[in-house]
């Protein structure tokens, strides 16, 4: 790292995390394409890399690259926020390699061993077969150790340096993030109890702690990129925390409609998940407000220049506000009430929501962080977009929107045919799958998936080359 402009080792470590995250992001897209192809051509890689294997890697890679990029983001912003080098940076480096190596082993086992006999050993060594948290138990323990080490670094740094509001939120949030993971490590013969705790992990991650993480990161981004006032941003962050946790924690109810849990979850789930879009709307206003105010102040001084210090990153941050609102908000809201969810639960609607929400709420912001890291590493004052950044952004965002639209169409057919008319039986399921609208939806999903994948390569090319472009202000 001879040419690096990074003064802090913490930021260098962050770039490692970002690099590994980007690679896993690629793997996620690749295996997503395999699974999408199998919907169109069922014989594709049959009994070689079956849908179950491809999808397991698709969704596990999703979680893993995001966790990597999230840890990287914290290492990136810590020196800026606390004003000091991260404490325990050596530990951070060791943990990085341990984590990365574990992930590689886990994925290779998924690919090569795939399934094991029905015994506890398979759960310990191969996978646990529970969507999103399939990682075998040895890896669960490794993940807990790695995350505990990361949290130690975060706490030690936050307590030694200047503990800003953003750092305070992150400290609380990351502790909850790690603690919740423990709820998903057990085994039980009772599938209702199993799914009850499984949702503690999945829901309290993606609809509570991860969203708060996104709020903190967006706050950091607004301060660094457009010079928003810390006091305003941090106050707003606390309001977001209140709104996100206030609606998100009990929004859990919408996963407890049909897994054997009592009926009162209907009311709780409906009420709190109806509130869940509000913080997302609020986050959107917040970005708009700060941008408008800061640009307004700049114009008042007679300056015509934009206040944005990193155009590509800011674009992704704005797409985050939009994507979060669309994916988590709109696509979540229209099937969240139990009366509707009775028919939509477990159809491609869920899949449409999952794609746009994970992408809109998390991928966008983390890609924005990649751009911030490139800017910092190259010592650029104002980083402008290149043709490649614009292409990458349009292809990826357009591709995911396209996939979501296609999956929504397919889901609609499934609701009507398989659910409302055929009552969710085996025959009803395949009647829905055979509908021309459904199959066309799947074709379009694959096409849009390819667009997204190509966009990913443009993104990587841009991240590798944008730092050397000459139109930035250094």
């Amino acid at each position, binding site marked *: 790292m001879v040419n690096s402009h990074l003064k802090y080792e913490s930021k260098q470590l962050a770039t490692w995390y970002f690099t590994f995250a980007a690679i896993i992001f690629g793997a996620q897209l690749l295996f997503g394409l395999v699974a999408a192809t199998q919907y169109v051509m069922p014989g594709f890689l049959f009994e070689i890399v079956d849908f179950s294997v491809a999808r397991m890697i698709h969704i596990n890679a999703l979680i893993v690259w995001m966790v990597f990029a999230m840890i990287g983001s914290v290492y990136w912003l810590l020196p800026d926020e606390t004003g000091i080098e991260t404490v325990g940076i050596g530990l951070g480096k060791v943990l990085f390699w341990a984590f990365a190596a574990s992930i590689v082993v886990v994925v290779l086992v998924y690919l090569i061993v795939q399934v094991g006999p029905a015994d506890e050993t398979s759960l310990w060594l191969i996978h646990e077969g529970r969507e999103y948290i399939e990682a075998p138990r040895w890896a669960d323990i490794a993940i807990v150790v790695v995350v505990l080490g990361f949290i130690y670094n975060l706490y030690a740094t936050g307590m030694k340096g200047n503990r800003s509001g953003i750092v305070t939120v992150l400290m609380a949030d990351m502790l909850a993030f790690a603690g919740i993971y423990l709820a998903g490590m057990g085994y039980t*013969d009772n599938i209702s109890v199993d799914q009850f705790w499984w949702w503690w992990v999945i829901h309290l991650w993606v609809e509570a702690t991860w969203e708060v993480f996104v709020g903190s990161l967006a706050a950091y981004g607004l301060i660094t990129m457009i010079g928003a006032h810390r006091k305003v941003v941090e106050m707003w962050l606390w309001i977001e925390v209140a709104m996100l946790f206030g609606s998100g924690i009990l929004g859990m109810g919408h996963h407890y409609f049909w897994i054997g849990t009592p009926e009162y979850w209907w009311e709780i789930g409906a009420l709190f998940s109806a509130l869940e879009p509000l913080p997302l709307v609020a986050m959107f206003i917040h970005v708009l407000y700060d941008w408008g105010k800061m640009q307004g102040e700049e114009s008042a001084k007679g300056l015509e220049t934009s206040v944005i210090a990193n155009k590509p990153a800011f674009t992704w941050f704005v797409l985050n506000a939009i994507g979060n609102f669309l994916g988590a908000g709109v696509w979540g809201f229209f099937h969240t009430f139990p009366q509707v969810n009775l028919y939509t639960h477990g159809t491609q609607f869920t899949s449409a929501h999952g794609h746009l929400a994970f992408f809109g709420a998390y991928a966008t912001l983390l890609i924005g962080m990649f751009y911030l890291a490139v800017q910092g590493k190259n010592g650029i004052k104002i980083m402008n977009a290149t043709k490649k950044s614009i292409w990458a952004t349009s292809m990826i965002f357009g591709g995911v929107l396209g996939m979501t639209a296609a999956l929504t169409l397919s889901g609609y057919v499934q609701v009507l045919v398989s659910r409302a008319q055929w009552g969710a039986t085996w025959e009803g399921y395949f009647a829905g799958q055979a509908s021309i609208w459904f199959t066309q939806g799947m074709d379009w999903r694959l096409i849009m998936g390819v667009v997204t994948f190509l966009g990913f390569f443009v993104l990587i090319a841009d991240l590798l080359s944008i730092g050397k472009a000459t139109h930035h202000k250094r």
Partner: protein
Amino acid sequence: MAKKSVWSDNRFWQRSAGWVTGFASMLLIWLTFDTIPQIMLGSDEDLQQGVTKRVPGPTVINYKITYEMDTKRGHEIPVIGGANAEGRSSFQEKETFFGRDDWSEEEAAGLLHLGKLGSQTKNCMNCHTLLGNGAYYAPDLTKAWLDPAWGPNGPMQAMTGKNTKEEAMAEFLQFPSQYPTHARMMPNLGITPEEAKGLVAFLKHMSSIDTNGFPRNFGKIEGAVHGK
């Protein structure tokens, strides 16, 4: 300078966030304490004494299970051992499972344990949905045990050439690619005869869980509100 108001005080919002989060968490924990006992596995004694549990004990595999509309609750519920006068489980009518209807609590629990483990190690959930959760590449298994396709007149049972639902399901699970129903096939997952038995027990048990009426109109193609 504008007057300092509580609405623009960082500490006020920090505390509010703390209180809201704490309150929501406590409520969730309290509800968890209420819910978990309600969804614990029942026992054989419950079944024999006619106690309805949301998640019945493993010996439910000895009983006949159906899925009937409950007018009071406004949705379908699993009915175990035939219906009583109110349309609820009467726990009377038995049904053989692999030739027996006297599986002991220990034996049944063993089968369920094997089946649940198998459902995880064979990665069912990354193609199928269980209780509506999982992947959408293959049919929902929540009430698969009650699926007419596997019933005495159903095409699936006929295809395997077996005489009972459980034997047909077990046969299919062991040799899925020998019985292709659609271009999209289930792959061979190396399921042993014993594991297949466990998995079918797991499916039968899952169909007896009270899922608040999910899925709606299951298996009622003729009688469904919008039935074809």
